[in-house]
């Protein structure tokens, strides 16, 4: 690991009450990034949002709210980019099949992935042997 790399691995119970804890960790990490300068507060809010949306997806959809499961989150920040990975043990889904929200229809659901895509540069969902991972990358300026 290079001297300017930050890596965090977190496991939390599959419960929405932990959304604020993980969101806060994302905010605090963003505030450590000197490079981002005046954009740090915006980045902090965006990381909070992305972590919240990705975790909610794992807790509510992939794990169907099962409190016995856990959610694994990994955050890696290097000089030039950051990557958030949220792992789940659900059925998995095809990220490319999720449509853009229809803004004229006033929908209550289905904005989570759209928001993540808006706030991050690259979003990938991979199915691995015994789990899945939602991987979200952002370049740092």
């Amino acid at each position, binding site marked *: 690991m290079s001297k300017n790399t930050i890596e965090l691995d977190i496991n939390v119970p599959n419960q*929405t*009450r932990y*959304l*604020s804890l993980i*969101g806060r960790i994302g905010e605090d990490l963003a505030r450590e990034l000197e490079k981002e300068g005046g954009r740090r507060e915006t980045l902090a*809010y965006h990381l*909070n*949002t992305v972590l*919240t*949306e990705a975790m*909610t997806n794992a*807790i*509510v959809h992939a794990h169907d709210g099962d409190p016995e499961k856990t959610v694994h989150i990994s955050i890696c920040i290097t000089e030039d980019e950051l990557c958030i990975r949220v792992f789940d043990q659900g059925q998995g889904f095809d990220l490319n099949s999720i449509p853009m*929200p229809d*803004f004229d229809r*006033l*929908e*209550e*659901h289905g*904005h*989570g992935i*759209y*928001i993540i895509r*808006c706030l991050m540069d690259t979003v990938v969902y991979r199915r691995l042997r015994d789990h899945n991972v939602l991987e979200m990358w952002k370049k740092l300026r």
Partner: protein
Amino acid sequence: MKIETGEANGVILITLIGERLDAHNSDEVKGKVRDIFESGAKSVVVDLSEVRFIDSSGLGAMVSGFKNAISHHGRLVLSGLQAQPRSMFDLTRLTRVFEIFENAEAALGSFAEK
């Protein structure tokens, strides 16, 4: 999330007291707004001035409230959005759906004008 309700000149003011409106508490807020419309209210303000963070579930709760208002021939408006929650309304194009007032007083006043 603490949900306070009050009434002024026939308008129900719902104030959400808490830093986050997210998937953990959005159902509670959604249920409260639905109950208020089902109990006969027609005019509702949801004040978000205390809310620093909102996610897609929180936005969904507001959309649900808006739909409740329509189905009960009522009106639901928002007030006091902080800059970052407001950016989420912008991102999901909801700023063109909701009437958003600077503060609860202005939102309540808007019902007197109509």
